[in-house]
């Protein structure tokens, strides 16, 4: 039956979510209740007992980070297709195998391309 298993199967997950939320919330609330509160101006500094801050805190990231992130996102998400294929491997047979090899081959060429273009070199 569609839908009927939702409450029973996902009950543990729901309990864990509620429990985690309670623990997190409890810690924060307990902290607010217990800790002493003595505010003064020095406390608002970025580094309370260090040097006064110089310049903007928002530094520009190197573009390398973006490139790595992009590559990660692309290659990571492609793995989504490997799971259903692996589960249904017996049923799909030779067609599924050839298709998946083709898929991985295309990814491989993309990999060789970014490698040769030097996207993995940090310096």
């Amino acid at each position, binding site marked *: 039956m569609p839908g009927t298993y939702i409450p029973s199967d996902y009950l543990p997950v729901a309990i864990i979510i509620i429990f985690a939320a309670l623990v997190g919330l409890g810690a924060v609330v307990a902290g607010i209740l217990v800790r002493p509160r003595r505010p003064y101006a020095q406390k608002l500094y970025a580094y309370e007992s260090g040097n006064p801050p110089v310049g903007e805190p928002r530094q520009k990231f190197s573009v390398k980070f973006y490139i790595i992130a992009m590559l990660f996102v692309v290659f990571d998400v492609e793995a989504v297709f490997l799971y259903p294929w692996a589960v249904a491997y017996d049923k799909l047979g*030779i*067609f599924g195998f*050839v298709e998946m090899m083709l898929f991985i081959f*295309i990814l491989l*060429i993309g990999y060789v*391309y970014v490698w*040769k*273009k030097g996207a993995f070199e940090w310096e």
Partner: protein
Amino acid sequence: MEMEATISLLDMRLLVPELTLICVGLILMLLDLVVRKKELIAAVGIAGTLVAMYGTYKLYGFYNPQAAFAGMFVVDGYSNFFKLIFYLNIILTICISLKYMAIEKASFGEYYALLMFSSTGMMIMASAADLIILYLGLELMALSTYILAGFMRNQPRSNEAALKYFFLGAFSSAFLLYGISLTYGLTGTTNLKGIAEALSTLSIMDNPITYLGLIFIIVAFGFKIALVPFHMWAPDVYEGSPTSITAFMSVGPKAAGFAVLGRVLFDAFAGMQVQWAAILVPIAVLTMATGSIIALAQTNIKRMLAYSSIAHAGYMLLGIIAGTHDGLTSTVNYLMIYLFMNIGAFAIVIMLRREGVQGENLDDYMGLSKSHPLASALMLIFMFSLAGIPPTAGFVGKFYVFMEAINAGYVYMALIAVVFSAISAFFYLRVVMYMYMKDPVKEVELTTSPSMSIALAVTAMMVLIFGIFPSILLNLVRLSILG
């Protein structure tokens, strides 16, 4: 439960042309890492396209309809004719861009690979008989085209064009997906034939949700084809992109959009013809009006051609609105003609670009006929054709579309189209007037190359041949679509 669909390795055979283009694209990517000469890469690209074209022609018969992958992928005359448009589009684009990309200092091998990937996406769209495949083809086409639009990385104009194209393109594909999901939810299938069956057996054609799904799908393709009011991106993107890509984009994605629109509306939503015609009629009128009228005010020729391309999309829509297979034939016929005249016109625009000179303004064409009579004569042919003046192909294309609209009972639509066509003649002929009746104000040098000459010769010849012997093309289109 659905029937267990069987897919075998044998189904891959219908994918041979697409696989060929993908392989060529991958080879070009790798080749670019080792080969410095871009001419070689371009030549391999053209050769690969020709191989794929041969595959489409000879492998299983051009007109012979066949389905594979449990009916998700169809190869028939309709899709094959569109594939012909895409192949020609690749080859002509490569021909006109070789020297141009070097001048723009953006001559990278990826350019040619992306042309292949983008065209593969278009081919998949033309062959898609399932909304899932359609979406994948669309995204393959769109993602590659976004990059191509921003290919001149060192030019802010190109970057901005890519940015705008990307955001509006992604927005429109979200609409397409929502439309697909609504249609799927109601009919329980994504197969176009299955949708048509479900619509009639479940009798949900009057359901507002069905209507909503249909509207969302039309809106999404309205974005891709640049129909008003979903055209806002087109002028900016066409102006900022590399000119060769503007030529590529104004033909390829537009043709692919029409291919899908034709198949989805005629196959899946055939029973709702009254409804979708009612949506498309105001869109077509607005598209023709906006394209023709705003183009009058443009001084940048790329921008002018962008609005012209919007107006032409409006004319092409008439064939779809007619709702008959003859109407569809006239639209496809128009698309093929548009390929030649539009790429030809952009080729001339590209020739005016050289080191340090943009050559995109109307003023640059002043007195061109004095210094470059041949190029001016060619531009004259393309402008006459775009305006729809006989004996050029543009006239034939418009004539058949208007005729089919009248045959289907849309006499007023044909009248409106003729009026806007007359208005649009003004800005096309203004270019001719600038070339022939004004005195040159500055020295204009043209950038020529052998491949460019070939492209110009082919496009100009085709525009004239199809203009004088329209039956050649029309018979081919008829055979492809009507079987």
